[in-house]
């Protein structure tokens, strides 16, 4: 470099404006810019060309100082400038080009966005990504999940200001996800009150654990709640691909809401309590007693001659198709060898559904025939079905009102002035038999009234047997009824049938039988799961709980010591329905139901915990059932098993006392699973101790067997 390239003084340097939109075209092409450059509008402003002026016959240069001053050469003889500047096409400056490119980029971006956002409904181009497989069929229908999709751009702008949009969208989720129940938007799908109740219960326990520092700090940030509700998107975030996991949460996220917080399952997780035996099993079955007593001791071979000892747990329990549950084998496969004879119980005469009260012939003077029932009636009350059938008989109702408290075993002992009322009872019974004999099922329908729907579907029907009983006990009933209707005096029965000393039955094949010994019509279950008895008990427990204590059938089939004659004990107990099948009562609706199956087909109650047997059984041969299910040998001696306390009911006489005392409660006979036992496998080293492995968030979610 021998000399400076550029002069900076104003005389030797052009007036440069690089920030202007336009620059001189000649500068760009030849490096010969004019001194003024183009205008702001991009027009050439060539002004350096002078117009020589003629003075004294000679032309003189008139170029201004700003444009370089007078040139040495001066004008040509013809008066033209010797340095003619040609105008040029100004060019955009670099800055202007950049500005233009910026504008173009912004325009393209805005246009693209407007295309994507245009129209009444959002374009699929707007979608941030694919939804999961389960939602794939509604992916193209944005409005299925987004309330914003119902409108255009203006709606979206409006919705950005709306705090409830998340809950509105959650309502759309629940249109399909009805299995989550009505409280789905509340934490854990339970009501606020229930959540407070559970929280209080947890807080009352004394177990403490140190809260991780992250949770302590996170608690300062608060929770995203809206009116006590949680939007679905709080936990489930869509558009992350077909294979995304919508339910994935970390342990810290789960615990951030919880009253009791801890580091991990291995460190600080509360004890499992009575899990999985916090409730009694649906089928009363004491594993410990069965395996360690009945199948071991010789004494029980006498009462269970066909009983066979299971070889292992899998003899009775096999997993379902998913491996989640261990199902109990059928009655025929697992229980029948011991309990079928008890159910068949040849000494059990059946349950009385109809019985003639004890009325002495002296009380029936001029009132027609009445068998000699003296000393035959076994109970103080009429069978429940009879009560129902006589409920709308005005004569009967008037009579029992007049008699007051009635003991149907002692109607013979009434005062003479009450004889007419006793006779009216007899006529009511005869009318009942007559109606059923002549009108059959129609008579039942009419007499049962509002109860008819409940009891009429019970099969086999009692009608044929009652008609036959009428033929046997009251062969002239039609004539007697006619005369009685015409208020004619009737002679007492000329044939006083004596009660046979023994027990005799007729038509026993259908389950129904007529007993001439005590003038009853009885039903005897024809085997396990007898449909009539099941149906009767279901109706009784669901619809007529208040009268259960008056229902001899209920009492017999739920009383471990009752056999119909109320004098059987011990092993016969397991031949009665409700000795094995428990009753559950819904605390909210108050409706009870009998658990005919060991496991519910659908989980309608709160289910905070889930467990699948399959992975545990597949974990290797080292794992077997006894690793986790350890027998509880306490309270299994025979005295404890058979003591009457074992069968104590609650106040409603419906339900067994539960878990108050292991010696009295009917349990599976296993010790609760211990957390330490689980943590041998589920620990930090194996990284299998996530909350979601064992806990459901949606406690009321109905699970299907496929899940």
């Amino acid at each position, binding site marked *: 470099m021998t000399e400076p*390239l550029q002069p900076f003084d104003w005389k030797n340097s052009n007036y440069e404006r690089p920030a202007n939109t336009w620059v001189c075209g000649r500068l760009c092409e030849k490096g010969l810019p004019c001194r003024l450059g183009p205008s702001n509008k991009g027009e050439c402003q060539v002004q350096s060309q002078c117009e020589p002026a003629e003075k004294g016959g000679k032309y003189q240069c008139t170029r201004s100082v700003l444009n370089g001053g007078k040139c040495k050469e001066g004008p040509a003889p013809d008066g033209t400038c010797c340095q003619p500047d040609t105008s040029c096409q100004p060019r955009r400056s*670099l800055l202007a080009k950049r500005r233009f490119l910026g504008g173009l980029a912004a325009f393209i971006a805005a246009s693209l966005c407007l295309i994507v956002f245009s129209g009444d409904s*959002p374009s699929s181009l707007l979608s941030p*990504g694919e939804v999961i497989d389960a939602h794939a069929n509604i992916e193209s229908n944005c409005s299925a999940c987004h309330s914003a999709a119902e409108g255009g751009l203006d709606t979206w702008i409006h919705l950005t200001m709306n705090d409830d949009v998340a809950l509105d969208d959650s309502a759309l989720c629940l249109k399909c996800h009805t299995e989550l129940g009505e409280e789905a938007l509340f934490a854990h799908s339970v009501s606020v009150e229930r959540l407070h109740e559970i929280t209080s219960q947890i807080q009352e326990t004394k177990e403490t654990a140190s809260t991780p520092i992250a949770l302590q700090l996170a608690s300062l940030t608060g929770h995203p709640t809206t009116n006590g509700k949680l939007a679905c998107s709080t936990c489930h975030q869509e558009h992350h691909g077909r294979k995304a996991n919508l339910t994935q949460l970390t342990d810290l996220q789960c615990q951030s809401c919880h009253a009791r917080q801890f580091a991990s399952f291995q460190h600080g997780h509360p004890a499992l309590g009575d899990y999985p035996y916090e409730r009694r099993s649906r089928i009363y079955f004491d594993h410990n007693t069965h395996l360690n007593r009945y199948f071991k001791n010789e004494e029980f071979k006498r009462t269970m001659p066909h009983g066979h000892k299971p070889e292992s747990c899998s003899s009775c329990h096999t997993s379902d198709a998913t491996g989640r549950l261990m199902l109990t084998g059928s009655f025929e496969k697992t229980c029948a060898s011991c309990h079928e004879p008890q159910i068949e119980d040849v000494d059990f005469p059946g349950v009385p559904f109809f019985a003639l009260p004890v009325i002495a012939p002296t009380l029936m003077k001029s009132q027609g025939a009445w068998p000699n029932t003296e000393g035959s009636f076994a109970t103080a009350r009429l069978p429940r079905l009879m009560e129902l059938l006589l409920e709308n008989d005005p004569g009967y109702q008037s009579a029992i009102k007049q008699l007051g408290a009635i003991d149907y075993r002692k109607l013979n002992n009434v005062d003479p002035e009450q004889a007419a009322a006793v006779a009216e009872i007899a006529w009511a019974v005869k009318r009942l038999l007559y109606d059923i004999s002549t009108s059959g099922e129609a008579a039942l329908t009419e007499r049962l009234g509002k109860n008819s729907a409940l009891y009429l579907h019970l099969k086999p029907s009692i009608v044929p047997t009652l008609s036959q009983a009428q033929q046997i006990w009251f062969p002239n009933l039609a004539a007697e009824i006619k005369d009685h209707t015409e208020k004619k005096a009737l002679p007492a029965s000329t044939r006083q049938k004596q009660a046979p000393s023994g027990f005799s039955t007729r038509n026993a094949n259908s389950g129904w039988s007529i007993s001439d010994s005590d003038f009853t019509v009885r039903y005897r279950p024809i085997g396990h799961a007898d449909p009539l008895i099941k149906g009767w008990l279901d109706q009784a427990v669901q619809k007529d709980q208040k009268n259960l204590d008056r229902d001899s059938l209920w009492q017999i089939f739920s009383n471990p010591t009752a056999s119909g004659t109320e004098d059987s004990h011990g092993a016969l107990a397991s031949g009665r329905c409700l000795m094995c099948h428990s009753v559950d009562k819904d605390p909210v609706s108050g409706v009870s139901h009998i658990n005919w199956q060991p496991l519910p087909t659908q989980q309608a109650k709160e289910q905070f915990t889930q467990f699948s047997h399959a992975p545990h059984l597949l974990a290797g041969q080292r794992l077997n059932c006894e690793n986790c299910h350890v027998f509880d040998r306490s309270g299994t001696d025979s005295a404890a098993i058979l003591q009457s306390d074992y069968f104590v009911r609650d106040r409603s006489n419906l339900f067994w006392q539960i878990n108050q005392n292991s010696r009295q409660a009917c349990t599976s006979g296993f010790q609760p699973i211990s957390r330490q036992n689980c943590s041998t496998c589920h620990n930090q080293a194996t990284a299998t101790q996530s909350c979601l492995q064992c806990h459901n968030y949606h406690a009321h979610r109905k699970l299907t067997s496929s899940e």
Partner: protein
Amino acid sequence: MQQRITFLLFTVISLLIFAGCYLFSITLSKTSFASGTILLLCLLFLASYQLRKKISFLPLGSSAAWLRFHIFIGFLSFVVFAIHTRLQIPNGLLEFILFLTYYTVFLSGVVGLFLSRTIPYRLLSRGEEVLFERIPVHRRKIHDRVKTLVFDDAQPEQGAALPDFYHKHLQDFFEGPRHQISHILHSKRHLHQLKQKISAQEPFLDEQEQVRLQQIAEQIQLKDDLDYQYIFQAIIKLWLFVHVPLTYSLIIFAFYHALAACAFASTSG
């Protein structure tokens, strides 16, 4: 020292943002909204640097300070962007375009930072600093000077060796910017080759022509230095053609994305 403080500050702020988002995520708060809002604010601030240049008459701090802050926020925005996108490539078209635009702008910014840190040193190492817009003028002057030395200053008795040499080897060199790749690669091979040709030509010239050839050689060096200045200044100016226009696109995409997120993200998260 200042760099260390800046780096420490950057680390602390990044960790605070990360920790804040992490803690919010624990409570199932929508961290995407928080990180998205921070990111949008960062983008607006970064874009305002361009505005700052326009309103330089206002006392808003020195341009150098703004640039330092621009770089600081730029890198910080990348941290927030990484948190916002969870370092995943989005599936949706609009979000993918947004993702791509951000990365282009960010990387062009990083490239620009690298250029602005290295090129000035390289410019100082060769030739005189000239204004980029004046380079054509200087090039023209050099060319005119060479042509004068070759043609106008020649004596009638001198042969056509020098003009031939000019037409053969120099004319193209002086007509415009040349050897740009070599300059970028910091190579002087082309200049060395040209000097070798001059040396080879010298024995065939008389004394006067040799003097003129030496003067031409000086102009060659001057022109080469000018080309060097031209290409590096052009690079510094051209990277802005990527960085600035895409920033405008980025802001528009970001606003649309924010609108869609607020209206629709209650379900998608």
